[in-house]
């Protein structure tokens, strides 16, 4: 069964897909936006420390559904196992309108200039496919600005001397600091570092018709109870729909990008919520399913002209899967820290993001988001037993007196860290699932250890009596909510999947627009960059659109 032809079909209503749908619809193109999940509902906004996108021991409210969407994960030792979305290692990203932007912590970072030219800044790193982006920070600057204003960002980055040049300051002021932020800010200043208020995709004052943050600390893993957190579900997607040019179809599961005999994209085949197989034809197809599912969809779309899948002529689709490696240090204080007040992560510094001697890259450092009691259970120090009276007493003594800091270490892309189609396992719809394998680069651990040393200095200066660290190892592929890299952007079709405008090299009406295109993933949370790239790529599409436009 086929449906009315449109100008563009966008697969995935997350950070990127929402932006692209809105930009195209506003420019007068007819758009169908397909989303595998439902609209998030207020019922799912409840705070539950065992059932959320971050701690999903009892499942997760924003999907994807555990029964229908398995993956095969190959661990560091080469053992493959079937993993459900709420289980560890799945590398999950929410399946709902807005996707991760509903349940993220909502840091709204711009990458630094060096993040776009890692290779030319640090040179080749043996064992890594490290490469520069074909575009630079200055190409994205206007689009970062647009994202900040259309989605909405609060904070104050003006004290950060390392930030890339920006035309405007942040839109909304930061929230008042809580006790933890004040302690850390003062300590960092005493050390001669440059702390500042984290840019957050969150209203600190009423904006866009929605209220200000109520400072509850529960951003991460949860939806905002008062709708003060900004994602694509409550900003650009409603605006896209309001143009009358965009139709969103939820609970629709894309299975293949259809091509014509000439190899060009002609639409998407998908299962709707009643499991009917439908075909939506379009002048162009935009894939915005995040790094793992975007790669999977391209690989699934095999045809005579594209026998290895779309964009995969040179075997680059699905490779270089990255996320971030997160070292963390916790410190125990004599005084009480806990004041039950947001912002949770609120203070950051970029003194060790780049330019660390002998190291390629670094990390932005910030305090940790909400630590629920159950999360703290697993993060007790090595000198405390894992159970029994001593553990119980430590929980009581330490919970209100600890601070945890850390940061996302920029990863070195790895050729063998990849997404493939599993030869055996299929999902509910009978479609081969993603098989994720590979390991992280050892240099990432070195950088993480360096960041740990700085976190320890920070916490000790702040008054911590004891500290304990956790450093992730190299085993297993990375990804998670920060997943990126699987459809690399580049000028050379032989060493990348899309060109500098996110256009698949050999299919001119097929675009991949999401974190997949990042050659490297910055030392920051990537959501804002994904949005900025989406504005940038959509602008290119609109400027080059020669077809008809409907009035909006």
């Amino acid at each position: 069964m086929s449906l009315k032809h449109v100008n563009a079909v966008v697969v995935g209503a997350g950070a990127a897909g929402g932006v692209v749908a809105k930009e195209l619809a506003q420019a007068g193109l007819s758009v169908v936006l397909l989303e595998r999940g439902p609209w998030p509902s207020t019922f799912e906004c409840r705070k539950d420390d065992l059932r959320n996108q971050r701690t999903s021991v009892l499942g997760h409210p924003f999907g994807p559904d555990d029964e229908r969407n398995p993956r095969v994960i190959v661990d560091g030792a080469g053992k493959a196992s079937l993993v459900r979305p709420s289980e560890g290692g799945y590398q999950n990203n929410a399946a709902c309108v807005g996707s991760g932007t509903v349940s993220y912590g909502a840091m709204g970072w711009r990458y630094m200039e060096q993040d776009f030219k890692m290779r030319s800044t640090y040179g080749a790193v043996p064992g890594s496919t490290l490469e520069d982006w074909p575009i630079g920070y200055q190409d994205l600057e206007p689009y970062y600005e647009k994202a900040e204003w259309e989605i909405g960002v609060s904070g104050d980055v003006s004290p950060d001397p390392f930030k890339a040049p920006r035309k405007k300051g942040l839109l909304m002021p930061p929230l008042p600091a809580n006790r933890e932020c004040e302690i850390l800010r003062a300590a960092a200043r005493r050390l001669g570092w440059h702390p500042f208020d984290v840019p957050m995709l969150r209203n600190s004052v009423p904006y866009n018709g929605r209220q200000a943050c109520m400072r509850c600390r529960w951003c991460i893993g949860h939806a905002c109870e008062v709708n003060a957190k900004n994602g694509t579900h409550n900003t650009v997607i409603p605006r896209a729909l309001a143009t009358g040019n965009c139709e969103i179809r939820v609970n629709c599961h894309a299975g293949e990008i259809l091509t014509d005999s000439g190899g060009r994209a002609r639409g998407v085949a998908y299962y709707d919520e009643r499991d009917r197989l439908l075909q939506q034809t379009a002048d162009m197809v935009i894939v915005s399913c995040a790094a793992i599912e975007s790669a999977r969809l391209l690989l699934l779309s095999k045809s005579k002209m594209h026998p290895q899948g779309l964009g995969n002529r040179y075997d680059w689709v699905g490779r270089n899967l990255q996320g971030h490696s997160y070292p963390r240090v916790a410190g125990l204080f004599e005084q009480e820290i806990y004041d039950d007040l947001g912002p949770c992560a609120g203070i950051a510094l970029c003194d060790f993001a780049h330019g660390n001697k002998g190291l390629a890259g670094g990390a932005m450092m910030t305090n940790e988001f909400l630590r629920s009691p159950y999360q703290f259970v697993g993060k007790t120090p090595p000198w405390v037993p894992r159970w029994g009276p001593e553990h119980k007493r430590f929980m009581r003594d330490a919970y209100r007196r600890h601070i945890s800091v850390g940061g996302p270490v920029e990863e070195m892309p790895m050729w063998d860290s990849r997404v493939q189609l599993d030869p055996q396992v299929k999902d509910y719809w009978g479609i081969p699932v993603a098989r994720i394998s590979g390991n992280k680069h050892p240099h990432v651990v070195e950088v993480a250890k360096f960041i740990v040393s700085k976190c320890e200095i920070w916490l000790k200066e702040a008054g911590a009596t004891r500290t304990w660290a956790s450093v992730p190892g190299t085993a297993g592929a990375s990804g998670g909510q920060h997943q990126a890299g699987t459809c690399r952007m580049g000028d050379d079709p032989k060493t990348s999947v899309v060109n500098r405008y996110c256009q698949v090299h050999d299919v001119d009406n097929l675009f991949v627009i999401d974190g997949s295109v990042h050659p490297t993933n910055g030392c920051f949370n990537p959501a804002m960059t994904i949005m900025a790239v989406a504005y940038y790529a959509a602008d290119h599409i609109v400027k080059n659109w020669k077809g008809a436009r409907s009035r909006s």
Partner: protein
Amino acid sequence: MRKVWNPKRRRFLEAAAGAGVAGPLVSCSASNSPWRYFTAEEGETAGAICDRLIPADEFPGALWAGAVRYIDIQLCGHLRKHREAYRLGLAAVDQASRSQYGKGFAALSAEQQDQLLKAAEKAKDPFFALILAHTMQSYYGDPRHGGNRDGIGYRSLGIPLTPVRGRSKHDLTGGTK
């Protein structure tokens, strides 16, 4: 919100089990058991284990806080896939207890129980890791799932029950309390 603990629903499930039309939800316990999944003996062994993992001190232990209830409810819910692990794991704990001390785990002294648990931890017994994680979830996680009775896990840390602030008017934007 506490739908899972609705006595009417329980009666229905028991009736369904008795009538032999049990769906996957009620492949449950023998009729003399107070639990959904566990037999009475399993419940007792599980409770004894949980109560050593989080023993009573100034604050009640895991048993009082509803650890067994949490695990039992969740074994009929999201943790369904661990059913077999519990059936075998609890039997193995009792077996080890009987062969070493001549009686079931629940009848041992606290010291003897700790000895067995430490041995299981040292041997990296996956069932030990499982019941440890679930006990911690029951004590320190949201009470709506069957554990953390009266919010004792939260109260022992000095924090309030999870607030539902979005439904009442709060202005907390002015600064710290």
